[in-house]
């Protein structure tokens, strides 16, 4: 058997780079769509507000409300969607 080709990731010129960690992507998403306000919070507070915000997002999208950044929630965040915030502001 040949060794699986090791995928080489290249940076494509002009590509919109989204090399964020999952948590960064999640926080970006939660702020952009109104689940979390954008003011900076301390570490602990930020964890609490992220968990609460995740639960609100999971409820809006009909996912299990775990408050954790699980696979289903990450996948939902990568879905193509409308740019209007979900939480009226």
């Amino acid at each position, binding site marked *: 058997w040949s060794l699986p080709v090791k*995928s*080489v*990731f*290249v940076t*494509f*010129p*002009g*590509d*919109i780079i*989204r090399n964020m960690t999952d948590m960064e992507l999640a926080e970006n998403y939660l702020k952009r*769509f109104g689940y979390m306000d954008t003011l900076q919070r301390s570490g602990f507070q930020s964890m609490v507000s992220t968990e609460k915000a995740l639960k609100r997002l999971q*409820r*809006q*999208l*009909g996912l299990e409300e775990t408050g954790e950044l699980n696979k289903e929630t990450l996948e*939902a965040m990568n*879905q*193509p*969607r*409308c*740019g*209007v*915030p*979900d939480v*009226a502001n």
Partner: protein
Amino acid sequence: YQTFDGDLKWDHSDVTYRILNYSPDMDSSLIDDAFARAFKVWSDVTPLSFTRLFEGTADIMISFGKTDHGDPYPFDGKDGLLAHAYPPGEGVQGDAHFDDDEFWTLGKGPAVKTRYGNANGAMCHFPFTFEGKSYTSCTTEGRTDNLPWCATTASYDADKEYGFCPSELLYTFGGNADGAPCVFPFIFLDKEYSSCTTEGRNDGNRWCATTNNYDKDKKYGFCPSRDTAVIGGNSEGEPCHFPFVFLGKEYNSCTSEGRGDGKLWCSTTEDYDEDKKWGFCPDQGYSLFLVAAHEFGHALGLDHSSVRDALMYPMYSYKENFPLHQDDIEGIQYLYGSKPGPKPTVPEPNTPTTTSYPETTDDPFSTTPSTKLPDNDACKVLKFDTITVIEGDLHFFKNGHYWKVPSRGDARHQGPLSISESWPALPAVIDSAFEDVLTKKIYFFSGTRFWVYTGKSVLGPRSIEKLGLPNSVQKVEGALQKGTSKVLLFSGEDFWRLDVKTQKIDRGYPKPTEVVFGGVPNDAHDVFQYKGHTYFCRDRFYWRMNSRRQVDRVGYVNYDLLKC
């Protein structure tokens, strides 16, 4: 469903829209049609109507843009954000923006409308066979002029039906060259170009000159994307080049190698390693109709829904024959009410059936006012004595009663209220009334007499001849404020201009109504000004005239104004 804070909605039911620019992904006629069908989704279930404007400012201005497109909410390249729209209101409010880094289709791959050929503009049929070979995209095979074409049935060999595919060699769109095709090579800023370019623009749109020298002729157009063109990347609109070399390996088809997101891409030159020119390969794309129907929901006042199958759910998912979900219908009807028309055969649970008009035996245009007031239901009144605006709200008078429709919000009419309780000196039948803009005095006309109310105090009745109206005038049927001190008084087929300050009719009157107000009934029994428009009523219909004296709407008093 959700609405925006304060139930933002349009304060008129004939909403206008204008398409400011186009995407190169689909023929402009397909884009026009997708938007028209998207509006119809909402006009089918509400009293709303949508009129397309081709110039000036419309309520809903529609445009395509990429990344930073001029508002504080940039798009993000291919996928991710597809579009956004603003809730109803002035300026950018109500507008809808579509991300042109997306691949806009009808949801099932390239939507290629042909031009010329012998198929009358039919869509390409993919796959199709030609000379025994199967094609899944347009081809220049069989031609020497390098024009891409396709069959519009499954087999060209059998049916010989074909048309030409979008190509900059065939036509351009937008620009100032009336769709003329590109001329290659062309000179731009003293440099020669032999293909479309984005040079000179910051919006990423591909363009070309339609003469051989742009610097001299300044003639240009935007290039339609070929169906094999790549999307996004740094070669938007260029076709894939097969085979191409990537990391030393040769590829004869699109690949996701080199990417972590699994998206298919290709090189647009034979050697990616050398030239680094690439783009995403055409996929199913996003249904412009579906995304537009969603965005127009926002532009009408709906926010996102949490019902997964609802159109207003934030995520995109392609649905073949798309039905509007009940959640969407309830949301939009909460804002605008349901579509007038025949009563539903079986009323929806816990929703009031729409009011149906009593089957009148007499001629609906009968002028004899019905003496009996229908059981206090304004929606059953065929003809009001008068309608006017007092303190910004519409007032409907009939036989000693009146109803009010607040000019803000969605509340239905209030009433019946008693005329004699609000204005004790008045008779039961009021022929017309108006509120003086400056003094807030309210003038009431009945027969040949008139009254002037200032708050609770009243002056009158006095004869209308006091104002200088001739004794031939039996009643004043309409009053129209003009500016701050003039009011037009209508009677029969003429009108007079009253100077409110001098309380005298101006010289040079009367004038025939139809000479100045063409296109409305010259025997309207009611005329009033409301929200910048002039309304002429005859029985249960109104003719609405805009400030340019164009009749821009004819409708039902009860449905559109009384909000039945």
